[in-house]
């Protein structure tokens, strides 16, 4: 190894120090959430500075599970996220394949139209979507959350970008062997799309699990709430009982954090891919 000049060593240390400071700042809110979730109430309301709980307790978790339908909210989030993910990812793969590999009338225009939907802010549609689900008679049900959420163009774009890179020769060869469009999709394209499917599933799950504004509008019965709405509801009922609120917040973010840590590579790939275009 070459000798390291002092200037280089200084800059290496400066970089490490910066990284440590940034890391601590980024982690602090999460650390604080965990701390408060396991702290007795007296700590939460004390006016003195305390960075470590005076004792660790599960009281806050007992409270949220006994006084609120926390388990139900968790289940609702799971069910809604699962259905939205299946619908969205299936639709995205089908449409992505059509845009990437099929030749049809109106393809360019249609693709632009689909892309343009990414420009429509969800909030613009709030009122009209609310009226729509009311007219359809599904307001207040899971379907009111699921169907509009499954109408998303972002995944179509990712799917198209991925599938377009599959060599045409593979598809031509299958055609020569007599495979139809559906068989080519199921037997040639899909097996090659595993990384794409992973990315789409993770991004959709993350988005749906965390979605707030639309479920807030579409649901009314507290038994049907998802976790983010439940969290807000809990805050409305408990005011400043930060211990309980942080316990529920922790319950609500843990699955997504575990998933993120386990599949980080795909998450980051998916996000990065959206930027490379």
């Amino acid at each position, binding site marked *: 190894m070459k000798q390291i000049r002092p200037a280089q060593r200084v800059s290496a240390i400066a970089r490490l120090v*910066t990284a440590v400071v940034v890391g601590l700042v980024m982690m602090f809110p999460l650390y604080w959430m965990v701390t408060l979730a396991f702290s007795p109430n007296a700590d939460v309301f004390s006016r003195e500075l305390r960075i470590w709980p005076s004792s660790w307790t599960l009281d806050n978790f007992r409270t949220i599970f006994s006084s609120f339908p926390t388990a139900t909210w968790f289940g609702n989030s799971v069910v809604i996220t699962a259905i939205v993910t299946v619908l969205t990812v299936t639709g995205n793969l089908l449409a992505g394949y059509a845009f990437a590999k099929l030749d049809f*009338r109106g393809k360019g225009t249609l693709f632009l139209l689909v892309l343009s939907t990414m420009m429509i802010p969800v909030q613009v549609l709030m009122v009209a979507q609310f009226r729509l689900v009311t007219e359809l008679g599904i307001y207040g049900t899971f379907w009111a959350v699921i169907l509009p959420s499954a109408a998303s163009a972002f995944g179509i774009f990712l799917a198209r970008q991925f599938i377009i890179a599959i060599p045409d020769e593979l598809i031509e060869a299958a055609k020569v062997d007599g495979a139809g469009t559906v068989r080519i999709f199921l037997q040639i394209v899909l097996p090659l799309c595993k990384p794409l499917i992973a990315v789409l599933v993770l991004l959709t799950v993350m988005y749906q699990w965390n979605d707030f504004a639309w479920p807030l509008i579409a649901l009314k019965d507290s038994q049907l709430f998802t976790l983010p709405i439940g*969290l807000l509801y809990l805050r409305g009922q408990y005011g400043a009982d*930060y211990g309980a609120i942080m316990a529920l917040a922790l319950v609500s973010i843990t699955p997504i954090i575990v998933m993120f840590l386990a599949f980080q590579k795909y998450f980051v790939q998916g996000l990065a891919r959206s930027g490379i275009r």
Partner: protein
Amino acid sequence: MSAGTSSREESTDDTGPPPSPAITPAAAPGRASRRQRATLAAYGFLAPNLVLLGVFLFLPLAWAFLISFQESNGFGASGWVGLDNYRRLVTDPTFWRSALNTATFTLLTVPLSLALGLGLAVLMNSVLPGRRLFRTLIYLPMVISGVATALMGVLLFDEATGIINKLLRGGGLAGIPWQSQGSAAFASIILVTLWIRVGFNMVIYLAGLQGISPELYEAARLEGATSWQQFRYLTVPLVGPSTFFLLIMDVIYSFQIFDTIFVMTGGGPGRSTSVLVTYAYENGFVTRDQSYAAAIGIVIFLLTLSFTAIQWRGNRSRDTVG
């Protein structure tokens, strides 16, 4: 759908083993119908998405326009009032305050998230012990729900019991009135937004940086360029496409900021943190003036659209689609 295509192809297989000469001449007369069948198959694949997008995006968009020209009576639209809702917007101080707040928020958060994102990406792209861990710590807030992050913000910035004011007071300083004073409340929202948003910017910039060839830096170093010059004249221009993409994404994100403000301040104190989206929500689902809310929504849409169009034109040289 595909049965037609495959049976046709199978029949060519029956007539002779070498497929290529059989297909080309046969394709010429049957070309129109083949193309029609292909179009039909393609629309079959597109149908699930097109139906959902049509019913739940395009229809509500058109409907939103209609509603914004109507009068609402609490729960439904009634009479046709033309541009009345839009005229009311022009003279509504809360609307202007919210529009101004949206603009200020965007002008502050977008450059800051870009600069911090790029700075961190450069740092995380350099030789650094434990950089995978550091990267993970920076992404992490972005996967957490907006409500949870906002509640963490509420907790940290609470005037009486929040840790930030406790630290300030512990250091002999005065606490900052995060809840009672407008500009402090605005600042707290920006800090929480940056905390959530910086990770995304870093991811995109990292991907951009990894596409730059190291030889360029090697050459610059041989020419005697300082690290700052390398950053200014190589890195910044070369991550231009990432900046372009992030600019659009970050501006759209900022125009549409909702969860953080709704949970942290509810637009207060007074109207100091009210933005267009929270104001639209308030009109649509609290005071139930849905037509007026729809009109605000249309304004947000037009703003987003014109910003994107300007950006798109400015960056035409780049092939962004495909």
